[in-house]
């Protein structure tokens, strides 16, 4: 690691101020950032830890029934505390990384990083969630802007994520065998006004909505409704773990399984 200055504020306001410094970077749970620093692939002058900010942590139900999760909430906490309100989301959180990673990694950190194989972006996009930052609210459809790219400005902190709770939902992840990230992950969420389907792991553009499947499932929420739909392999990731065609195929399989499991 390159040397850096370390700061651990206790309020969002202090964190925002600290992140105003030149080459400052926020540190969530560090489960991606610290390995990156160890490889010297990043060289922040200052790391601003968000782990001391109490107001970033926790899961609560808002007045309209939506679930609000603090940006600094760990995957393990979401797995425990969202289990009653949004079981599909809790189940997704309970399968990110491994237990030790889930005790440190945070939802805000995961979303800000927007790894194309991460799980949370699929849940956020399929749920039509809102990402709340220190300065604004960003709709999920506007937040993800391609691999490792988001709508966040420099120094902007995800304070919470607001999830509308669907009538039925499920996440199916097919593991990349080495990293155990999603080779393909599909989150299906059925709301009163329609179905949303978000796919992670598969596309060179990062998480995306499979709109054909959404239309078909909004009309008929059964696995068979999407069995004849095909995903175009051309924009898919092809690598040593699976070809573009394979990933495109898995999107269909995982979608059907998610629909079946969502019931």
């Amino acid at each position: 690691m390159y040397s850096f200055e370390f700061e651990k504020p206790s309020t969002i306001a202090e964190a925002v101020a600290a992140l105003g410094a030149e080459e400052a970077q926020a540190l969530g749970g560090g489960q991606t950032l610290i390995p990156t620093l160890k490889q010297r692939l990043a060289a922040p002058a200052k790391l601003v830890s968000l782990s001391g900010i109490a107001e970033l942590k926790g899961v609560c139900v808002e007045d309209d029934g939506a679930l609000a999760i603090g940006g600094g909430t760990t995957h393990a906490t979401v797995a425990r505390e969202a289990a009653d309100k949004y079981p599909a989301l809790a189940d997704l959180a309970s399968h990110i990384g491994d237990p030790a990673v889930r005790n440190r990694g945070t939802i805000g950190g995961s979303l800000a990083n927007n790894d194309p194989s991460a799980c949370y972006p699929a849940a956020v996009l399929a749920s039509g969630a809102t990402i709340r930052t220190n300065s604004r609210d960003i709709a999920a459809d506007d937040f993800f802007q391609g691999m490792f790219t988001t709508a966040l400005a420099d120094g902007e902190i995800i304070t919470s994520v607001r999830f509308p709770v669907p009538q039925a939902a499920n996440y199916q992840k097919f593991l990349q065998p080495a990293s155990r990230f999603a080779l393909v992950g599909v989150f299906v969420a059925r709301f009163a006004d329609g179905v949303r389907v978000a796919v992670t792991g598969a596309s060179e553009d990062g998480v995306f909505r499979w709109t054909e499947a959404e239309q078909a499932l909004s009309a008929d929420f059964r696995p068979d409704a999407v069995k004849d739909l095909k995903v175009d392999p051309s924009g898919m990731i092809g690598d040593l773990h699976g070809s573009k065609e394979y990933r495109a195929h898995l999107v269909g399989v995982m979608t059907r399984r998610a629909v079946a499991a969502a019931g």
Partner: protein
Amino acid sequence: MPKDSGIGASSKRREDVRFLTGAGNYTDDINIHGQAYVYFLRSDIAHGRINSIDTADAEAMPGVVRVFTGADFEGVGGMPCGWQVTDRHGQPMQEPPHPILAQGKVRHVGDPIAAVVADSLEQARDAAEAIAFDIEELPAVVDMREAAKGGATKVHDDLTSNICYDWVLGETDDAKVDEVFQNAAHVTTLELTNNRLVANPMEPRVCVAEYSRGTDEYTLYTTSQNPHVIRLLMCAFVLGLPEHKVRVVAPDVGGGFGTKIFHYAEEAFCTFAAKACNRPVKWTASRSEAFMSDAQGRDHVTKIELALDSDNNFVGLRTDTLANMGAYLSTFSSSVPTWLHGTLMAGNYKTPVIQVNVKAIFTNTVPVDAYRGAGRPEATFQLERVIDKAARELGVDPIKLRRQNFITEFPYDTPVALTYDTGDYNGTMDKLEAAADIAGFPARRAESEARGKLRGLGVNCYIEACGIAPSNIVGMLGARAGLYDAATVRVNATGTISVMVGAHSHGQGHETAFPQVVAEMIGIDESMVEIVHGDTSKIPFGMGTYGSRSLAVCGSAMVRATEKIINKAKKIAAHLLEASEADIELKDGQFTVAGTDKSVAWGDVTLTAYVPHNFPLEDIEPGLEETAFYDPANFTFPAGAYACEVEVDPETGKVTIERFTAADDFGNIVNPMIVDGQVHGGIGQGIGQALLENCVYDENGQLLSASYMDYAMPRADDVPFYTVDHSSQTPCTHNPLGVKGCGEAGAIGSPPAVVNAVIDALQSGGKTVDHIDMPVSPSRVWAAMNG
């Protein structure tokens, strides 16, 4: 009743207590006051010409002690290869130089360009980034088939080609082999690859070296399976140091699997730098560094042909293999595809005519050398895959086809240079069929099919040549070393015993199993015997641990030394008992005069040896310490039969291992618990090779699987509980314990069982797939099903 101590008992491991409490002493746990840290600047391109390296800025960085480049090692020997292979024309293999730090060219990603020694590791890294170098990128040769062609870019400019050797074993007359195949009733042909693997012991390599100006002595602590071999190679061939001035210590070592056999440049560098810098130096590999600097394993491309007569008897076998050496010859690399691979092509079968052709190829990749099984997994995989394919083509039961062709009479001279001393392949197969409940498979398949899954059963046999190795034989075959081992049994005055052994334990449990043997021979409690290993200053000599050799070779030396101890102790007892030595019997730690109740205890005899009052000094020296060197008369030949049942998800191609059963014949067994553990671990690695692991380079020689993010290590949920049976036992005929070795069997025997099972599953689902290369990943299975 199972025994509770001695040979055959599942004694609990004494070393576990320190490992379970954080009290182990691994090399990275060693810190020497004043030590500096080493960081290697490694090439990020696969092939390039070094035009210049300027270290001036780096030398001026804070904390930097010194920066080294290849120029500092002009005149110093390079890394040696320990095995001279002679090609089909009687010519020696091409053997390029392998400098400690790159000279002239870089030849693989990870090839060290320079090394920085600094007060801290981060300072060394900072300085490495300040080294200015001009390296002109050259085209890389990565694919062996391309590298073998005339006109290919050469990895080593001074060699005539990228072919290290072109070697043949068995029937060298092509016409005779052609005739067998022309007259055959059926020929089955299979082309396959044996995927490149990274050994990945969980402890990365580490070196800590210090030099004493006062005594001109060096000490190197290193993560090695064989400290004496490192000392010998480093002193004699690399640095030109007197062996008696160099101590090499391999303390607790966190797994080896072959990749810690070899003498590495980092070991020589640190030893050299400790004197050059007059400071202790320490280098700890990161895992990322291990991926590009630890010798890798396997990587063969093979065409195999099996000829059968009209009664389905095997009549001929011909193989043609390209074996990847990587960019340089690692210590034992040249022997792996030849004498550890070609010699095993007979397998468990009485095939009369065999021809094995191997070309070893240099490429711009990390060097390849022995990895658990080393050559024998490659032999077993191709043979057992082609037999399975033949059975399918002929419509015969694959177990029956194997049984029909088993060698049943011993000793058996194979057509590929080995003499199997003993075995019972039908008996072992019987054990497998029972333990695996082969008869119950159809019902299990039906149950899987009811859940929408395809189920397959794969069975195969294996044989391995272990107990490496008879020095006279390997010497004829080109080894530049003897492969005996040594043990010193030191009995203390109070009767406790220290046994200094040349074998090195890095997970195998020698500290527990070896004392079981000595304690049983003398009839004392195991806790009275302690094993000392891993330190050239403490043990007489030793060739280390690999090739499932520790108990068969070093254990035999220990038995011989213990026999000498007992003989001398009997003399002392005879003196104390005023009896004839010939009448003295040793049982349960008591020396008794035969036919009388006169006896003297072990402790009294040992005390007398060191307190020699009234001692017949003219006949017996004081003290009680004996050394034996043991050189085996032959290899040992563990053999077995394995069965794997898989389920394939037809929608995703994902394979899950539902059952795995191993029936092994290891001869006699000292500690069944440890043997089970060795087999489990080997199977885990074999399943890893078959389903998950793959070391992949792109066409430019960039390592794509460069971390655990892309190199799939088997996890707990990738494997099932295994069923292991080693009740089929034909003791080795030529070593005193009748043991054969068990360390590599699981890794050798399991990959073909997995792949055979996957093919069986796909065929049961109506897919005409007859081969998928390893790793049999979901994407490959899906592609094969839809191909």
